[in-house]
């Protein structure tokens, strides 16, 4: 029996070690970015890389207030992401309600259409959008960028919200109708409070995707609308070797996402798995 215990212990220790290695691989690039962001540029190029060094906050100051400040880009990203999120939720909630809970002619096909729009490769949209926005004069404009962002946020939001709305028991609405509520009142007073969690998850996902978007941002933006992902890319291509400043800028841009990710970790995982765990999700 004792022998068995020790093999079990050994097995658990091996499992834990193996899992920890993978854990380390995921966390390391971020940790290393933090280390590099605290170094001076000369220190970055020291070989072998030093773990002990004099830390400096200069890179963060430069990234925020220096010559190539990312502050305007952070504001741009905030405007674009917030506007995209608000518009998406306003349009997606009623649509998802209809898909999940109402009789609608051709619902199956309309649902399939929504799902299909989600699968369109972004490069297939950035090309026509460049030509169209160029003609309309909307390149490098907020209204252009937000319109484009709806292409990936809206289908996703509808799809995610439908899964949450389907889970609400019919009886709750029936009760509201018995109280002489109309459809809209039922949506407002019965359904919406029930899917508050689902709406929160959707907001998180839409905001995150909009904030992190790069292809549309780099090609359809410009000097007026330059989201932070583009600012960072420009940073490295212009200032090839300024790794410390790049690391600092990237960390500043990613900190809001990391905070959202860690605090809303449970909700995000739920959103990722909403279709998968239910045993297949949407038909």
């Amino acid at each position: 029996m004792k022998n068995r215990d020790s093999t079990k212990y050994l097995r658990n220790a091996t499992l834990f070690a193996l899992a920890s290695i993978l854990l380390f691989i995921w966390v390391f690039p971020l940790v290393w970015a933090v280390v590099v962001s605290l170094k001076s540029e000369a220190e970055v190029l020291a070989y072998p890389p030093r773990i002990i060094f004099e830390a400096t906050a200069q890179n963060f100051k430069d990234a925020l207030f220096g010559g190539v400040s990312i502050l305007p880009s952070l504001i741009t990203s905030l405007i674009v992401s917030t506007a995209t999120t608000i518009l998406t939720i306003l349009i997606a909630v009623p649509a998802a309600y209809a898909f999940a809970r109402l009789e609608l002619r051709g619902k199956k096909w309309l649902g399939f259409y929504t799902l299909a729009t989600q699968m369109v490769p972004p490069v297939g949209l950035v090309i026509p959008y460049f030509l169209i926005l160029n003609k309309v004069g909307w390149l490098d404009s907020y209204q252009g960028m937000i319109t484009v962002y709806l292409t990936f946020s809206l289908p996703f939001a509808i799809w995610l919200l439908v899964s949450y709305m389907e889970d609400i028991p019919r009886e709750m609405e029936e009760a509201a109708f018995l109280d002489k509520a109309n459809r809209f009142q039922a949506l407002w007073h019965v359904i919406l409070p029930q899917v508050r969690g689902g709406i929160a998850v959707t907001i998180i996902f839409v905001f995150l995707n909009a904030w992190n978007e790069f292809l549309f941002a780099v090609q359809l933006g410009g000097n007026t609308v330059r989201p932070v992902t583009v600012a960072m890319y420009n940073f490295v291509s212009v200032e090839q070797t300024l790794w410390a400043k790049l690391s600092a800028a990237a960390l500043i841009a990613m900190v809001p996402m990391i905070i959202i990710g860690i605090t809303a970790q449970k909700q995000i995982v739920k959103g990722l798995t909403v279709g998968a765990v239910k045993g297949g999700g949407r038909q």
Partner: protein
Amino acid sequence: MHRQGGLFAGERGFALLMVSPGLLVLALTTTFPLAYLIWSSFQNINLAMPFLDGFAGLDNYRDMLSDGRFWHALQLTGIYTVSSVFLQLVIGLGLALLVMQIPTGQWLFRIVAILPIVLAPVVVGLFWRTLMLAPEFGIVDFIIRTLGFESVNWLGSPTPALVSVILIHTWQWTPFAFLVLLASLASLPLDVFEAARIDKANAFQRFIHITLPLIRPAIIIVVIMRSMIALSAFAAIFAATGGGPGTASEILNLYAYKTSFVELNFGYGSALAVSLLIITLGVSGILFHLRTARRS
């Protein structure tokens, strides 16, 4: 069934009212540009040589068939998608099974796994290009040299560049597979496993005959979602290698992009994008079909 409120005559009318803004916006923002893309794939649109613009018929598609760079990009798209999705699935499932065995501290894995997912792919590409994989100063090169191996120019030579962009993608998205599969495993009923244990099934048999069939829906969802993303992966590759060196890591997505925005040949770029669109819809169609067909 139930009485209707006065404001909206019938359920269908109300449903239409609710759904039409969404469908209208989708039609305007997605379907119209796609139609435009298909139209432009039959045109000569070259911003560098606008005097040649005009209807091209099937010329762009004919050019594509005899374009070695297209076939190369297509091949790379296949390699990139299949290998990265396979790696994500295998590592993610393996880790999920491992973590399920760990009695405490699962939360730590869940938190860490969220980190790569919330990072912008362009940041991931930039971090790997500079801090991790750069020759001489990158930490991976440092480790390799410390272990006594030759320094490798990870992103500067063809095969290592392709391997690197696949591994970067795998690094960022394996946590997705891990989290979805972990949640799926955690939702399985325990009594099935107890019964199998009483039947003296060993761990491997239990995995093949019980666990795997039960989590198959989750696995298929992971494969579908990750394949769609891998097929149109852009920012991380663009930031890490730009498709290079040469065309060594240029998947179809990047080729369509470069043709349009670097060579300014929008007609041909559109045709390339249409081919990627067809491939994406085809692959998703097959995968969805597999999902419904296998479920009994």
